[in-house]
């Protein structure tokens, strides 16, 4: 037991860097940075409250048709499915790609202990993602329906156990996945690609389930009669998408009678049992997938000989830098999954969800837009610009150098080459994302070639200042002390700050554009946008030149 507690404590500390946060708050410079971060986060609060307000009216709608419980189900489903999806990524990086594994594996600790302690830390991460989602649902339901004390007690229990089942599922799936892909020298690539396919597949499956459940619901003539006679009808049908969410909902909706209690018991028991099963399985699954992870292919002299061609390839400095960045991004699983994976997957998921769920709402919305209004084109371009920040390439570009930053600082590289090379690397990945995006929307709406080209052009042009904004943030506070690339990208506050600042930048431009759209000629708007993007590129370039020069001198 001591072992487990000490494992959890250590893991917790390294994951959240508690000691280092406490430490960094002591220095003035860091305090200032944390405050800026706080402000960036505050800018997201109004949006959150708007959504919560929207939830209030959603409750009223369900309430009117006598299916209040459906409201709760939506909350449980949203949070549990999100936990599951995030869980897949968290589990992968936490169990298999974290730097402490190298120390833990040789210690005389059972795999189940390691998994158990990692699971607990993951639970905490999952609370952070799921609480902002589930709380509004539970609170709105509880307040509007004036529920009693027992309701709130049940709620606390349910929230406590909320992440268990989805996280167990994610853990087991990933452990099986890792065990059977632990093959050969190219396993990083094999894994990354199959992971992408796997995740897209999972989401598709989820969406398909929803459609099926919805169809089943509307079948039969008695639907309306049943709707009136059974106030949990919607939950019983739609809950099949993810039964644990259904149990949770039923327990809260009937908390006053035995049915509620038994559902609660069921939810908790299944959670505990599934956890135990996962722990037992981990004994035989975990190490098989882990061992050999760190090993990379070395030919030991038997490899292919280097051509003279390879020995003497000359490239311009900024191209060489961009090339190096791209190779590193593609060869490091965490970077590939986050930067490239995100850029390609987000548009695909977006479009797939509209196609698979069979509801034509996105399509209808898109078709309703007057193609000549340019709204669609502008929205698409805005989406590409947003991806320019989400890809995190700018916000981690110096952090990713880590302890190797000395190379950049001792080489005679012009600062302008630094900037161009790093922006180029982001643009190459942006181009991939743009292609994925254009291909996906082609499924839903017909756009003419000219519009597509213009959309891509505007989007890519706008991605340049977006990347540069990220670079400004990263050069001001690069995270260089890491042993695991994980830290440079996933545990880097710069990424979040970048998204905050990027939202402000894009929000401001978007706001002005919408204001202008029916007042000024469309082509003038395009030209103005190009002007704004070019101008901000130039301004940011100059800022970056000064900052990089200064920071490269004073970083230690």
């Amino acid at each position, binding site marked *: 037991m001591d072992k487990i507690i000490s494992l959890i404590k250590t893991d917790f500390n390294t994951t959240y860097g508690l000691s280092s946060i406490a430490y960094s708050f002591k220095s003035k410079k860091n305090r200032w940075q944390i405050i800026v971060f706080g402000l960036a986060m505050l800018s997201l609060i109004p949006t959150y409250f708007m959504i919560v307000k929207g939830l209030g009216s959603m409750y009223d709608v369900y309430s009117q048709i006598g299916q209040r419980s459906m409201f709760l189900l939506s909350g449980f489903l949203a949070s549990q499915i999100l936990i599951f999806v995030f869980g897949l990524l968290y589990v992968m990086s936490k169990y298999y790609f974290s730097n402490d594994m190298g120390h833990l594996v040789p210690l005389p600790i059972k795999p189940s202990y390691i998994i158990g302690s990692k699971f607990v830390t993951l639970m905490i991460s999952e609370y952070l993602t799921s609480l902002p989602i589930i709380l509004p649902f539970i609170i709105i339901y509880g307040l509007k329906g004036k529920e009693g004390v027992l309701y709130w007690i049940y709620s606390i229990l349910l929230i406590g156990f909320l992440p268990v089942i989805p996280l167990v599922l994610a853990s087991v799936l990933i452990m099986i996945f890792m065990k059977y892909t632990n093959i050969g020298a190219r396993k990083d690539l094999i894994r990354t690609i199959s992971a992408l396919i796997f995740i897209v597949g999972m989401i598709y499956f989820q969406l398909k389930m929803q459609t099926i459940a919805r169809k089943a619901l509307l079948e039969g003539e008695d639907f309306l009669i049943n709707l009136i006679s059974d106030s949990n009808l919607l939950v019983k049908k739609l809950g099949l998408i993810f039964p644990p969410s259904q149990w949770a909902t039923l327990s809260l909706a009937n908390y006053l009678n035995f049915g509620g209690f038994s559902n609660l018991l069921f939810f908790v028991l299944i959670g505990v049992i599934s956890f135990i099963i996962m722990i037992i399985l981990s004994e035989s699954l975990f190490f098989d997938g882990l061992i050999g992870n760190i090993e990379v292919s070395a030919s030991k002299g038997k490899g292919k000989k280097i051509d003279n061609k390879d020995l*003497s390839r000359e490239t311009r400095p900024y191209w060489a830098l961009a090339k*190096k960045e791209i190779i590193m991004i593609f060869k490091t699983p965490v970077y590939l999954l986050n930067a490239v994976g995100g850029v390609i997957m987000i548009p695909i998921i977006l479009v797939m969800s509209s196609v698979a769920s069979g509801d034509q709402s996105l399509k209808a919305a898109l078709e309703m837009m007057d193609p000549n209004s340019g709204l669609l084109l502008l929205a698409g371009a805005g989406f590409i610009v947003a991806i320019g920040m989400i890809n995190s390439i700018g916000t981690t570009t110096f952090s990713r150098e880590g302890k190797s930053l000395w190379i950049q600082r001792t080489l005679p590289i012009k600062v302008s080459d630094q900037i161009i090379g790093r922006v180029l690397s982001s643009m190459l990945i942006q181009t991939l994302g743009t292609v994925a995006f254009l291909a996906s929307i082609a499924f839903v709406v017909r756009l003419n070639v000219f519009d597509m080209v213009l959309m891509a052009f505007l989007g890519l042009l706008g991605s340049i200042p977006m990347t540069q904004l990220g670079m400004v943030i990263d050069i001001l506070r690069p995270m260089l002390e890491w042993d695991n690339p994980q830290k440079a990208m996933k545990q880097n506050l710069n990424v979040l700050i970048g998204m905050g600042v990027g939202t402000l930048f894009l929000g401001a431009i978007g706001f002005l554009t919408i204001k202008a759209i029916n007042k000024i000629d469309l082509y003038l708007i395009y030209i103005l946008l190009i002007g704004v993007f070019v101008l901000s590129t130039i301004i940011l370039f100059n800022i970056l030149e000064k900052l990089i020069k200064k920071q490269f001198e004073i970083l230690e």
Partner: protein
Amino acid sequence: MLKLKNISKSYGKGTIKAVDDVSLDIRPGEIFGFLGPNGAGKTTTIKMVVGLLKPDTGTISVNNIDVWEEPLKAKSIISYVPDNPEVYDRLKGIEYLNFIGDMYGIPKEQRQRKLEHYLELFNIKDAVGDLIASYSHGMKQKLVLTSALLNDPKLFILDEPMVGLDPKSSFNLKEIMRNMCNEGKTVFFSTHVLEVAEKLCDRIAIINNGKIIALGTMEELRSHAVERKSLENIFLELTE
């Protein structure tokens, strides 16, 4: 060639004075040894020369180019090998070498000639097609040495270069250093082993607690040591 004038550097808001008023004048064509026990301030000094740490006071110039005023110009004639080279381990050796070559703008023929020579010499020719992540510590060091030599530097700066090298590579490196000096280039390296400095260097500076306590050829230092007890103690500390 390399001039340090009254260089000082403190860490932790002035609490630890790592380098204290160091002045050195290293001549072209000389192998200069920077000798001192652990924590004496060798790495700190070297980092200030190569642009990794800004001195609190003092100036550093290479070929009369101030390294902190005109860093690009200075860096293009310096090559630096750190004590514990951390390099991009997701690149292949050859990719790293080409990257460095591109950064210095080294022309094709020179690149090819140098690579052929040094890869053969350090016996890593067969490994450069592999990911750097698969290299041992010594192999990484040899890779960084090769990349530093690509540029044909006028000033070659090495921090504890012999640590971690096998005897043959260590011998080869010493040969390389001697040859460079014969061509009129300058080598500046640090070590904590008296013997290494003794065999290789034209002149030696001994640093202790951030201060230069002796400077000269080996014979000069030895004769001083007889007179001065403190120097003799340092010598004892530095003898393996």
